[in-house]
C-alpha cells in the first residue's frame, strides 16, 4: 500500500474521529456543561467534518497518476 492509499485511510479515520468528537461534545454541551469550550469543540468537529472530505477529494485528484500500491 502506498502513502497515497494510507493517507486516504487516515483522512477517513480522522473524519470519523470528528464525528465522534462532535457527538461527544454536543452531548457534553447539552447534558453536563454548557460552556464555551464545549461549543468550541462542536465548531472544531463541524469544521473537520467539512474540510477533511473535501481535502481528501482534492488530494486524490492531485495525485491521480500515482499508484495505490
Amino acid at each position, binding site marked *: 500500500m502506498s502513502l497515497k492509499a494510507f493517507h486516504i485511510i487516515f483522512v477517513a479515520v*480522522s473524519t470519523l474521529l470528528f464525528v*465522534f*468528537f462532535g457527538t*461527544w461534545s454536543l452531548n457534553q454541551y447539552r447534558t453536563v456543561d454548557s460552556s464555551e469550550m464545549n461549543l468550541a*469543540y462542536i465548531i*472544531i468537529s463541524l469544521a473537520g467534518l467539512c474540510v477533511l472530505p473535501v481535502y481528501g477529494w482534492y488530494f486524490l485528484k492531485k495525485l491521480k497518476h*500515482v499508484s495505490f500500491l
Partner: protein
Amino acid sequence: MEVPYTVKNRPDTGLYNAKIGIWLFLASEVMLFGALFSSYILLRVTAQEGEWPTELLNVPIGTVNTLVLILSSVTVVMAWASLKLNNFKKFKFYQGLTVICAMIFVMIKSYEYRDKFTHHDVILTNGMRVDGHLVEETSEYIVLSHPLEYPAEKGIGYRPTALHEAEEEANAHGGGHHHTEDRKIMLSDIEKRTNWGPWANTYFAIYFTLTGLHALHVIGGALVMAYFWGPGSRMWKKNPEQFTNRIEVSGLFWHFVDLVWIFLFPILYLL
C-alpha cells in the same frame, strides 16, 4: 555492491524492498500497540465500580495535539507529493513544517506530563482525600493550589462528581470557580501521598505507558524526517527516485504514529 530493488519494484512482490520492510515493521507495531490497547480496555472494564478515574486529562490540550498531528499528516504527504512533482523547494517547506508539528506535539505533551507530575493526591488521617498542584513543600507541611476534597472511601472514580458538586456550590455562592484558596496540609495529617505519575494507580500506569511509547515514536519519526530535511536530502541530486521512496517510507511510519493517536485521543481523553 549495489543494493537491489531500492528504486525498481521486485518482480515477486511488486514493491520496492523498503516498502515491504516498513510494512513488516508496522505489522509488528500494530501487535505492540494492539496489545496495549487491549490491556487498557480489559483493565477498564474489569475495574471495580468507582475505582476507575475519568476526566483527569486536559481535553483542550489533547484536542490541540490531535489537530497538530492531523496537520502533520497533511504536510508529510505534501512533502512526498512535491518530490513526485519534481519540486524540491516545496518538499523542503512541507518536510520542515512536519518536523515543526512533531516538535510542537512533543512540547505540548511534556507540558501535560509536567502538569501530572506536579499534581499531588493526598489521603488524610481523617478519611478525606485532597488533590491539587503542589506549590510549596517544607519539612512540616505542603501547600496545594486548586485543591479538591472528597471522602477517600469513595475512590478516585468519585472525583468528577466531587468536582461538579464543588462548582455548583461555588456558583450558588456567586463564585465562578470552586477552588480559589490554596490548601496548607500538615505532614502529620497525611496518611498517604503520591503525585499523578505512573505509580499513582493502574490508570496512570497504562496512560503513561501508552502515551510515552507513542511520544517516543513521534520523537523517532521527527529525527528521521529532520535528517531527510537536512543532510539526508543531498541524495535528491544523486538519486531522486530512491530519495522519493525514502520519503514515502518515512511518511508511512508517520501516518501510523498519527493513526495510533487518533485512537488514543478518544479512548483516554473523552471516554
